[in-house]
């Protein structure tokens, strides 16, 4: 077990506003028609058609069935994915259409674990789900089939669930891997795209040849006639001018044909090269929303518990002391001053404790130091840490408040783990903000072997990170060093 990725489903939804289309709607229709061949949009579409043709032609080899088809499909899956990425990047740079990337390939790592009884199967099922894997409980006999987790990790989870796995060997690992590659839906959708794209690109080339080259040729036909072609075509110079309207028509019509073809291409790319059907995306969002709701409910319950057991209890005790003191002052009998002084002193001490507890609680909800930005807050955190922490921050632009808060608590949790469990002598805390992504990384020189356990700190952290479509990556071989990386979208 070296690297585990707990969440990789997240991808950003990008909304593109087609400004070019919008600006071109303005102006009179005639002017619109005449200007069409000279707009930026036409030229970028022309460029896109020319450049995307060789890409489509090269990608087409991934579609041609060959001998040993299965192996070929498996091997060509990453290649066709790469071509898909190339097509998306062309679309982004030339057409201004940003198509979000589909989810990365994830090997299924399917394991079959037989358990002594159904209860153990359910425990293992829950542990695997909690660790970010997928699991299915067998129906006919007690056991679980797990996916997405490495065998060693499943063996660990099984041990905590009270099941000993004799040999957690994957079932036909290579065949599994090949099978998953062959079935990779993203690759198949990319293949479908290129199967449709190649004829589309050929039609585009034909339009370019006929519209632009043919148009220019017809428009300049008298010149060609005068220079060389009079012997071939015959006729008079005057009759050669009859080709001029045809040339003009071709040149004016070509941009519209190009627009149509490009729109078709955009539509194909959006449907076949993007992150999949809206239904898939909606399911991912629903899951992350459910996690967010659960997370905030648990957080509120925790705060309520802290208030109830802590501050409120302290205040009640304080009121009782003051009540007793008031009663002692309010008697006809001689006033017992030392006793009252003791009660008031106790109450005073209780009030100070309540204030300190409230401050800690408030800091747990929202650290005030975050108001000055994440870098300052992390500096405070690093200073407060029990062991020396080297801090590297590069946050040129502030992420949204929710992301800053999650990043801060992630760093706090990770540093606390280092201090508590790792036996490390020093740690490095790194927070880097690149466009669209905030990365928080904590590295230590401790003994390693860190892994999330259900209801543990790392697991809670992973859950919280997933609520905003972020991901956490734990690299902690036994013997160390440990690197935990949390990646969060800048805005959520």
């Amino acid at each position: 077990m070296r690297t585990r990725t707990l969440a990789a489903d997240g991808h950003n939804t990008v909304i593109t506003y087609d400004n070019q289309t919008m600006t071109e709607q303005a102006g009179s229709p005639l002017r619109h028609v005449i200007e069409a061949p000279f707009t930026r949009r036409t030229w970028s579409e022309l460029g896109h058609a020319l450049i995307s043709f060789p890409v489509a032609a090269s990608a087409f080899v991934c579609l041609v069935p060959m001998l040993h088809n299965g192996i070929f499909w498996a091997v060509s899956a990453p290649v066709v994915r790469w071509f898909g990425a190339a097509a998306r990047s062309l679309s982004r740079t030339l057409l201004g259409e940003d198509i979000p990337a589909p989810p990365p390939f994830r090997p299924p790592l399917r394991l079959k674990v037989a358990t002594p009884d159904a209860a153990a199967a359910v425990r293992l099922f829950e542990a695997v789900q909690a660790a970010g894997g997928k699991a299915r409980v067998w129906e006919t006999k007690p056991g679980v089939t797990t996916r997405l987790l490495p065998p060693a990790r499943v063996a660990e989870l099984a041990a905590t669930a009270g099941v000993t796995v004799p040999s957690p060997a994957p079932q036909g690992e290579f065949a599994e891997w090949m099978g998953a590659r062959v079935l990779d839906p993203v690759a198949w959708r990319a293949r479908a795209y290129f199967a449709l794209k190649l004829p589309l690109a050929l039609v585009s080339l034909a339009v370019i040849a006929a519209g632009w080259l043919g148009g220019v040729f017809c428009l300049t036909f008298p010149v060609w006639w005068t220079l060389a072609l009079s012997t071939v075509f015959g006729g008079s110079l005057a009759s050669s001018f009859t080709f001029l309207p045809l040339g003009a028509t071709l040149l004016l019509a070509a941009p519209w044909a190009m627009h149509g073809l490009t729109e078709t291409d955009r539509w194909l790319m959006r449907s076949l090269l993007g992150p999949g059907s809206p239904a898939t995306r909606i399911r991912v969002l629903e899951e992350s929303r459910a996690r967010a709701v659960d997370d905030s409910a648990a957080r509120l319950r925790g705060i309520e518990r802290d208030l109830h057991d802590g501050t409120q209890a302290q205040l009640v005790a304080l009121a009782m002391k003051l009540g007793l003191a008031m009663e002692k002052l309010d008697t006809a009998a001689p006033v017992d001053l030392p006793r009252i002084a003791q009660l008031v002193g106790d109450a005073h001490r209780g009030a100070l404790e309540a204030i300190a507890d409230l401050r800690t609680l408030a800091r747990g909800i929202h650290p005030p130091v975050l108001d000055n930005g994440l870098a300052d807050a992390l500096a405070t955190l690093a200073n407060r840490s029990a062991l020396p922490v080297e801090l590297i921050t590069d946050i040129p632009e502030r992420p949204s408040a929710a992301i800053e808060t999650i990043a801060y608590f992630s760093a706090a949790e990770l540093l606390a783990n280092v201090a508590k469990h790792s036996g490390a002598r020093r740690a490095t805390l790194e927070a880097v903000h690149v466009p669209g992504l905030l990365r928080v990384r904590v590295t230590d020189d401790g003994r390693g072997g860190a892994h999330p356990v259900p209801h543990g700190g790392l697991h809670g952290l992973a859950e919280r990170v997933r609520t905003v479509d972020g991901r956490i990556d734990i690299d902690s071989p036994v013997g160390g060093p440990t690197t935990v990386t949390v990646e969060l979208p800048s805005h959520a």
Partner: protein
Amino acid sequence: MRIVIAEDAAVIRAGLTEILTDRGHEIVAAVGDAAALLAAVAAHAPDVAIIDVRMPPDHTDEGLRAAIAIRRTHPGVGILVFSQYVETRYAADLLRMHSGGVGYLLKDRVANVAEFADAIARVAAGGTALDPEVVTGLLTATRHAAALDALTPREHDVLALMAEGRSNSAIADRFAVSERAVEKHISNIFSKLGLPPSDSDHRRVLAVLAFLDER
């Protein structure tokens, strides 16, 4: 009086112990959870058990369930339940046991030492001590809002005090009226609500609650 305290917050446990010892009561046991409470009651047979509703392990209604168990096994032990929130369901559950010597206070009330001591005394004597807020909660939670609407504001106040477990003379003192006037109000209330008149303090409370709680 011999008292057992069950409260999971150590500060409040200490505070209660201090107040009650100051009043000359004997705290025979101060425990932090329901199981220890049941053991302490069985061991010491106290006059009163003061019980927090929310206790470990689940922090829901462990104290209340323990209170009901004590009422079954040791009917002679007065029970004063207290919590930080008004939970009319808890109060109704407790009072449905149809016997005296029960109370339900909010924790804030405990800070008023005299009132708290008075409530303990009433519970120990087999009476009732309900927090005014609990009573308000019970009154508004009732399904007989229409019948209650027929009461005049003063009758409503009198009913609330009756539900708290106050005697006629205490009610008369509170409103600075004569006991006869209070009796008049009470018989009006009973007739408006269709309840048989009764003398005993707790039977009155039970009658009121039975009416409020009839479901």
